[in-house]
């Protein structure tokens, strides 16, 4: 009897929308909020963010260029002008090729921009898979606990028991197809376990907070608590990790590309550009220098941005 009365009470409480704060404060627009955040960043983090935006825009620009049949102002990344006597291999910077040309006299700048697509897609896939699947699984097992948790964590430990690069190498070795879709999928799936671990760990700490206990006390359904209270609160920490993880993924993809085991040539990737440049290292370092610089700058930027976010997040969650 008592239980029924409590249910009714709970319904009454939960059906009143206490979260409606529209009369209280006017929320800032997304643009305004972004501008304030951006201006509050340290200068290196600002530069890092600008560099990352440049890389993302460049990657999409090259795709658009391909769709439009190279109508946009950018050199053809596959065109080898030395076959027609127009340019020499490994040329220095000039007005036509302002970062010089590579071993096959192709335009370095264009190939760098086109190469960013592979890094971007692989990193985005890992991050998306990690946040969506890893985040949900981790929050679920961390909140519900029990046998499911033990079993999930134990089976993920098996994947984490391998050194990441070695497992990836073995996997791409046995699969014969090495195109972007397949590489991105392998990276994405193998990336999930660490996200699960982190999501689970932060769920354990969030789940003991007062607001979760309050939600439990008023009888909110567990799944609702999971999606309304827990997941939104573990996301900032998970996202900060995702940025740093994206940097790691770009390094690993670059390494596989360098070994010729990622997306196949002639499709440019930063890693395979470095590999091709190695043959001429005695003459010039530039065909290695540019992709190396792009790779390193992108990873540095992701690390800086990730560190910055992590600090903000830890400040925020300690204030909760």
């Amino acid at each position, binding site marked *: 009897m008592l239980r029924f009365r409590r249910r009714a009470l709970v319904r009454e409480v939960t059906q009143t929308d206490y979260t409606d704060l529209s009369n209280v404060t006017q929320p800032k627009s997304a643009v305004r909020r972004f501008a304030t955040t951006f201006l509050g960043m340290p200068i290196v983090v600002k530069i890092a963010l600008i560099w990352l935006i440049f890389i993302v825009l460049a990657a999409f620009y090259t795709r658009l260029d391909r769709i439009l049949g190279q109508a946009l102002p950018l050199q053809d990344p596959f065109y080898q002008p030395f076959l027609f006597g127009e340019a020499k291999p490994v040329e220095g910077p000039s007005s036509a090729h302002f970062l010089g040309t590579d071993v096959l006299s192709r335009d370095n700048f264009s190939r760098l921009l086109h190469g960013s697509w592979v890094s971007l897609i692989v990193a985005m896939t890992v991050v998306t898979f990690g946040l969506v699947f890893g985040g949900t699984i981790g929050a679920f097992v961390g909140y519900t606990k029990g046998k499911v948790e033990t079993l999930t964590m134990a089976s993920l430990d098996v994947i984490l028991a391998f050194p990441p690069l070695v497992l990836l190498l073995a996997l791409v*070795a046995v699969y014969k197809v090495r195109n972007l879709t397949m590489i991105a999928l392998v990276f994405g799936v193998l990336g999930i376990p660490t996200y699960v671990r982190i999501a689970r760990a932060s769920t354990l700490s969030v789940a003991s907070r007062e607001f979760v206990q309050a939600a439990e006390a008023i009888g909110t359904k567990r799944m609702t608590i999971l999606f309304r209270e827990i997941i939104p609160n573990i996301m900032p920490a998970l996202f900060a990790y995702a940025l740093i993880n994206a940097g790691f993924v770009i390094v690993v993809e670059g390494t596989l590309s*360098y070994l010729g085991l990622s997306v196949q040539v002639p499709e440019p990737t930063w890693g395979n550009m470095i590999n091709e440049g190695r043959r001429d290292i005695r003459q010039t370092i530039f065909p290695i220098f540019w992709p190396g610089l792009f790779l390193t700058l992108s990873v540095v930027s992701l690390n800086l941005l990730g*560190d910055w976010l992590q600090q903000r997040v830890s400040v925020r969650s300690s204030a909760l």
Partner: protein
Amino acid sequence: MLGKVIAIRSVRLIATLFAVSLLTFLMVEQLPGDPILAILPPEALDDLENIERIRKELRLDDPVLTRYFRWVGDALQGDLGKSYITDQPVSDAIRDRIPVTMELAFLATLLAAALAIPIGAFSAYREGGYFDRAMSGFTTAALSIPGFLAGIFFIWLFTLKFNWLPSTGWNRITDKGLLANLKTAILPSSALALAPLAINARLIRADMIGTLKEDYVLSAKAKGLRDRYILMRHALRPSSLTAITVFALQLGGLIGGTVVIETVFALPGLGTRLISGIYQRDVMMIQGITLFIATVYVVVNALVDVFYLVLDPRIRRQ
């Protein structure tokens, strides 16, 4: 108490090793089509008699689980099968090449430790100072540069520009002596050491900053002890526990990390054999080396766990 914990860890270790070996085995097994297509090089597939012979030899018609247990059973006795491309037993290849890989991983750890501890300690001592800020920039850079890129850069700088050190090749200690060996090992292990160096310097710095705020450090200062003495004697000791654990954990990871560095410097290590196995689609070799590296990695990590338990009684209670 400790004995019980170690027993539980051992059971878990064995379970993990089984799972790892199963995954390594299934990686090849789940490929669509006849496993013989994966095991043999394409040139050998025309010779039907040979195929039949190998199929009999490997008893490929048995159920998957039977073959898995046979593979693991053989592996436990040190037999990982043989390459169907070079006819070399996989365990021979591993025995041949493991010294190079081990030396690289060990040297890299040594280098990283020798630099990370003073850098971390001094950064913590002068927190926020010029040195600290410069080192924070350096560690961010060192963490972000891919190992293979650092390797290529070292080759370019020290071999092509300055001509100080050889870029490729390996002198065995037993053949040419320690000095000649170090000459070929120093560049690859430095490239390998960058990432652990950066991680450890950061960890030690963070740990020391905490330690330096302890009361006993203050009382040591009040006693009028010299800063250097306090730093070395009072602060570094409790922080060294973290450092030791992290270094040991990285040793396992470095064995995986050497794979690429060995390829860059063309060293006769386990990694180059794995990569050449991949290029030749030498499935038995890939499977064997992957299992070996993963086993070393898992066992090292488990040992570090136990070692940490022995050192720090506080963790045992959890």
